[in-house]
Every structure is written in structure tokens, then in C-alpha cells.
């Protein structure tokens, strides 16, 4: 049994390495900038959704307010860069740290809420964050911040001529989020989180401090999402509250995981690989005339998935195995 378990973990790692290698080679064949752009976004949302999945999938605390951490990552990076000349790499880490601290600060009162009440609280808090930034003069208010062009360099993490550096960073971030999840899955935190999700009372009786477990999950999740936010800000070279903290980001972090399989290792990546290109393509081909067609498409997709495969798409791969195990 243990051999099977170790073998499965090793197999996951090998598959991930192969997929990452394939993805790294993709730009050799895809020269179209528009497609490259979609690839960057797909990788970014895969990373974000993977990070969201840590708190909401594994630990079961469904958040629809992760746009807040995304925006904090973006704003911290750009404010430090434009006001104090701090390199984006440090801004990125600072943003991650601030987001993690805020996630824990918010967790302190809100982790007492359960189920829908927790979800509502996360939406409201993210909305408050958005309003604060829209009115914060020093941070550019609703006008936002334009990132000054200083020439292409890795040091300043700024590239105007090519999207490839962004592509490789997004790929690295995606790999990082996946690897963190993989590692956490077989750690005491991973076990505590799943126990907390399934039955907090039983978890508590087995020595798991439920509150601390949730705090840990929130911190890791927010940190990684904020790194994503910092990346996105550099990628856009311009930020305003709506474009880095809007509610749609919270949704776009949750949906891939839900589609692919919430609380699973592969769900977010699989979901993002399907959802994001689809969203982008429908937006550019049919979105022009009637706004929101893309939303209708993936809304319908989610409904179909929850009816036919409530465990997400990954359950297609594991279904036969699970059956074999019960016999």
C-alpha cells in the first residue's frame, strides 16, 4: 500500500516535470503573439487557482475575495517601484508578505464563520478593498498607476518587445504553486486541512487546532496569489483598482479549480487549461458584439460540470481506480 502511495506521488512529479518541459518548449512553435498572450494568462490563472485551492479546496474555506490579495500584490509592487524605486522582485515578496499578514488578520474574525457566511464575508471584504483603492489618492485612486518604461531587463522585470520572459515567469510560478501543493499534500498541514474541511469537530478531537490550520492555509494561499498579482501588474505595465482587484479575478481563481476538481492536485491546472483559452477565444470572436457571451459560456460549463461530474474533470481519470480500491 505504501509502495503504491509513494509510486503515485513520484508519478505525479514525473508527469508535472514532463508537462512543464513541454510547456517550456511551446514558444518554439507558437510565434503568434496573440496565442502567446493566451498562454501567459492560462499559466497565470493555473497558478492562481492552484493557490486558491490551498485554502478553499484543501482546507474547505471557500473564498470569493482572493482578488484582494491579487490586488495587494500588484499595488505593493508598483507603489514600491514608482514611489521608492524598489525593484519589482522585492516588491513582489513584500506584496506576498503583506497579503499573507492581511489574510491572517481577516481570518481572525472571519474563520469563526462557517459555510456561506464565510463566503459572503470574503466577497464583502474584497469589495471594501476595491473601494479603498479607488479613493486612495496617494495610490493613484481610480486613475491607477502607469509603470514607467525603463527598458527591457530582468532586473526591472519589464519587457516591451517580447512576451516570452513573462511566459517563462508565469510557467515558473505555475510550477511553484503546483509543487507547493504537491509537497503540502503529504505533510501534516495537508492532512490537517483535509480533516478540517471534512469535519472540524472530529479534527479538533484528534489534536488539530482548527483555527491555526485555517490561518496557515490562508497565509500560504494569499502569499502565492499576491505574487501572481505582482506579475500581472508588470505584465500589463499599468494598473488601476478595477483591473487588478475586480471581482472577476476572484471568480477566475475559483472556477478553474471547480471545473477541474476542487481540492485536488491536478484540478486547477486542468481547469485553467480548458477555461482560460476558451474564455479568451470566445471573448475575441463573439464577445465584441454581445458583451458577456464568454461569461454565459463558462457559466453553462460550470453548471454542466456540477450536474454531471460534481468532483470535477479529474474524477474522470481517478474514477476507475477508486472503484478498484473498494473491491
Amino acid at each position, binding site marked *: 500500500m505504501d509502495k503504491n502511495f509513494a509510486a503515485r506521488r513520484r508519478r505525479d512529479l514525473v508527469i508535472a516535470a514532463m508537462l512543464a518541459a513541454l510547456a517550456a518548449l511551446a514558444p518554439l512553435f507558437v510565434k503568434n503573439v496573440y496565442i502567446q498572450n493566451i498562454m501567459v494568462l492560462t499559466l497565470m490563472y493555473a497558478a492562481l487557482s492552484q493557490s486558491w485551492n490551498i485554502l478553499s479546496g484543501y482546507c474547505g474555506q471557500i473564498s470569493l475575495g482572493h482578488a484582494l490579495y491579487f490586488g495587494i500584490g500588484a499595488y505593493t509592487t508598483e507603489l514600491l517601484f514608482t514611489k521608492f524605486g524598489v525593484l519589482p522582485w522585492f516588491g513582489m515578496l513584500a506584496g506576498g508578505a503583506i497579503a499573507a499578514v492581511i489574510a491572517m488578520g481577516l481570518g481572525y474574525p472571519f474563520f469563526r464563520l462557517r459555510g456561506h457566511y464565510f463566503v459572503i464575508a470574503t466577497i464583502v471584504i474584497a469589495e471594501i478593498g476595491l473601494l479603498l483603492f479607488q479613493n486612495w489618492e496617494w495610490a493613484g485612486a481610480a486613475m491607477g498607476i502607469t509603470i514607467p518604461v525603463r527598458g527591457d531587463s530582468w532586473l526591472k522585470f519589464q519587457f516591451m518587445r517580447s512576451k516570452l520572459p513573462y511566459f517563462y515567469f508565469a510557467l515558473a510560478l505555475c510550477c511553484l504553486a503546483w509543487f507547493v501543493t504537491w509537497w503540502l499534500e503529504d505533510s501534516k498541514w495537508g492532512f490537517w486541512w483535509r480533516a478540517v474541511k471534512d469535519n472540524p469537530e472530529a479534527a479538533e478531537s484528534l*489534536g488539530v487546532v482548527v483555527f491555526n490550520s485555517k490561518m496557515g492555509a490562508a497565509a500560504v494561499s494569499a502569499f502565492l496569489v499576491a505574487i501572481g498579482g505582482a506579475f500581472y501588474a508588470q505584465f500589463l505595465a499599468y494598473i488601476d483598482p478595477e483591473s487588478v482587484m475586480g471581482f472577476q479575478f476572484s471568480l477566475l481563481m475559483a472556477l478553474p479549480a471547480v471545473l477541474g476538481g476542487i481540492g485536488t492536485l491536478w484540478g486547477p491546472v486542468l481547469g485553467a487549461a480548458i477555461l482560460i483559452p476558451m474564455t479568451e477565444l470566445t471573448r475575441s470572436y463573439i464577445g465584441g458584439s454581445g458583451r458577456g457571451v464568454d461569461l454565459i459560456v463558462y457559466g453553462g460549463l460550470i453548471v454542466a460540470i456540477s450536474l454531471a461530474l460534481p468532483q470535477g474533470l479529474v474524477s474522470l481519470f481517478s474514477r476507475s481506480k477508486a472503484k478498484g480500491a473498494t473491491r
Partner: protein
Amino acid sequence: MTALLETRGVWQRFGGLVANSDVSISVGRGEIVGLIGPNGAGKSTLFNLIAGVLPPTQGSIWFDGKDVTNLPAAVRCQRGVGRTFQVVKSFETMTVIDNVIVGALVRNTVMREARRKAHEVLEFTGLAARADVLASDLVPAEKRRLEVARALATEPKLLLLDEVLTGLTPTEAQTGVALVRKVRDTGITVLMVEHVMEIVMPLVDRAIVLDLGKVLVEGKPTEVVRDPKVIKAYLGDRHAVGA
């Protein structure tokens, strides 16, 4: 030697309802003690107070020579109190072995150690063949056993069993009784709440009868079942007079 567990003048009120009034009991090391009583006697409340689900309104609870009255459930588990739930609370989306690993992590922080411990416990409780099955796929008797396995994996000094033998077929109940004896033989003290008198009585060293939130009688099972007060509590006045 001091008792492993002691409740001193414990009261629990829920609004106007007094669930436990002035309950003082003690459980010695290595004992199997049965906590019995008719419905609504306050057994489950007392049980939850001991496990740390909620603090008592008044009084104190001592475990292993220390006051644990205000410690939360998780800390009591770390100190050596293991428990099961009357309504089983398995981690349904996790496999049997993963359920038990959660318990084993209390004393084994290295995953490999925790996993080994969990396998050991599954062997001990006879669930080894079901290790890789999802907890939601277990039959009720197995779920009860999983509750015990999980609690045992925390390596408790005191194991609290909440009606683990209720609702089982006679054969399953006998297997359960054998398991409880085996647990005690490893040096773990057992306090069990139970409904089914004929199964518990031969098993326990001592029985504590609760009625209307108070300790009614306490003693050897053979004496307790003959006590007129106990018969009255269970069956009403008429039968008590007859006895």
C-alpha cells in the same frame, strides 16, 4: 496512586436546563469504567465536558494530576485524551489510512512515522484490509471501528468511547467488546458511555449511573444492576418496589 481523571463538582446548565449538577467522578488508571443511565441523564454532556468540547458552567476537571478545565479539545487530545463520537464523524473524502494518519500526527510529526503508526493501529483494530478505501464507503460497524482507530492513533492515556457498541449486531458487538478489552490490555484507561446494559456490564470494572444530571449510584456492575434506585430510574417506581 491518584486517579487519571477526576471531575470535581461539575455543573453544566443550558439556559434553564441543568444537564449536570454537582457531578464528581473519578476514573483510575487501567480501569474500564461504564457511564450509564437512562435517556437525558446527562451522560453525553458529561462526556463532552471531559473531552473539552465546552467548559463546564461550574466545577473543575482534572486529568493526569493537572487542571484541564479550560483547555480546548485539541490540547486535551495532545495531553492524552482520545475520544469517539456517538454519531460517527469520519473524514468522508479521505481514505481509512488517511483518517488514522490525522490522529497519528499528534505524536509523530514526521509523515513516515505517522504513516507507520497508522498502519499499526489499523492492524490492531482489524481494519488493515480496508486501509485504502474511502471512509464514506465503509459499513456502519467499520465506521465505528475507524472512530476507535483514529482515537487510538493519538496514543491516548484515556480513551472515551461514546456508544461505540450501540446499534451493532450481536456478533459485531462481541467483536467490539473484544477490541475494548484489547485496548485496556495495552494500558489504556477506558471510559465508555453505553446504552446496552447486557453488553457493557460484563465488560466494565466499575459502573457509574447518572440520572437527571446527578450521580445516582457507583460501584461494581453486579451490584449496580440490582440497586433499587437504578431499577427505579430505568423502569419506574412499580418495578423498584417489586425488587
